[in-house]
């Protein structure tokens, strides 16, 4: 079955510290990988995507993610967290054989001042 796992329900970091939000996937064929962010009572916003090419992808608001094929992972990172980064983060995968975007269960990021 094609799936995405976000093993942490919540990640807590102090402002100014680096953050990592984990994501692993299971698909057949080539994966197209995405991160979206959801602020309270809002729709999802696109952060970044990996389609092909360089394994390190840079996105909006200083976020980046690294595609690791051997570990089937696509962890989201930021060198220095801001309180305003506090939100719900979704990893998603689209198998290359499908139109469908499959979302993980989401990870709540809480950045303490």
């Amino acid at each position, binding site marked *: 079955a094609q799936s995405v796992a976000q093993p942490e329900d919540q990640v807590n970091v102090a402002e100014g510290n680096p953050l990592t939000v984990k994501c692993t996937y299971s698909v057949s064929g080539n994966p197209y990988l995405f991160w979206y962010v959801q602020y309270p009572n809002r*729709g999802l916003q696109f952060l970044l995507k990996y*389609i092909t090419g360089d394994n390190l992808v840079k996105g909006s608001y200083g976020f980046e993610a690294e595609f690791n094929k051997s570990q089937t992972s696509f962890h989201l990172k930021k060198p220095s967290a801001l309180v305003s980064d506090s939100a719900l983060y979704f990893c998603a995968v689209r198998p290359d054989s*499908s139109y469908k975007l499959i979302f993980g269960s*989401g990870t709540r990021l809480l950045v303490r001042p």
Partner: protein
Amino acid sequence: DTAVSQTPKYLVTQMGNDKSIKCEQNLGHDTMYWYKQDSKKFLKIMFSYNNKELIINETVPNRFSPKSPDKAHLNLHINSLELGDSAVYFCASSPRPPGLAGGDTQYFGPGTRLTVL
């Protein structure tokens, strides 16, 4: 200037009623989607249309029927509402279907919170 808009924002209704949620995008996109987000924040695709043609039709109760009068609008009609239909429904759009240039970035509306009593 809202890119993807949904109406209503909140919808409270009784079991057994029929209701519709409307979605409009002014981005000139060809492809639109409906997602359901349950109380645990789990997000799942329901339907997708490309230029008024259905391209994704997930296994959802046939009480749910999408309608796309033109490529800028995708409405969701729900018959005989049940308690389990309570969720937030998100509309989204992309320039083209996934896999084509620009098609893999989706733009989401603000959501419609449906509560069935």
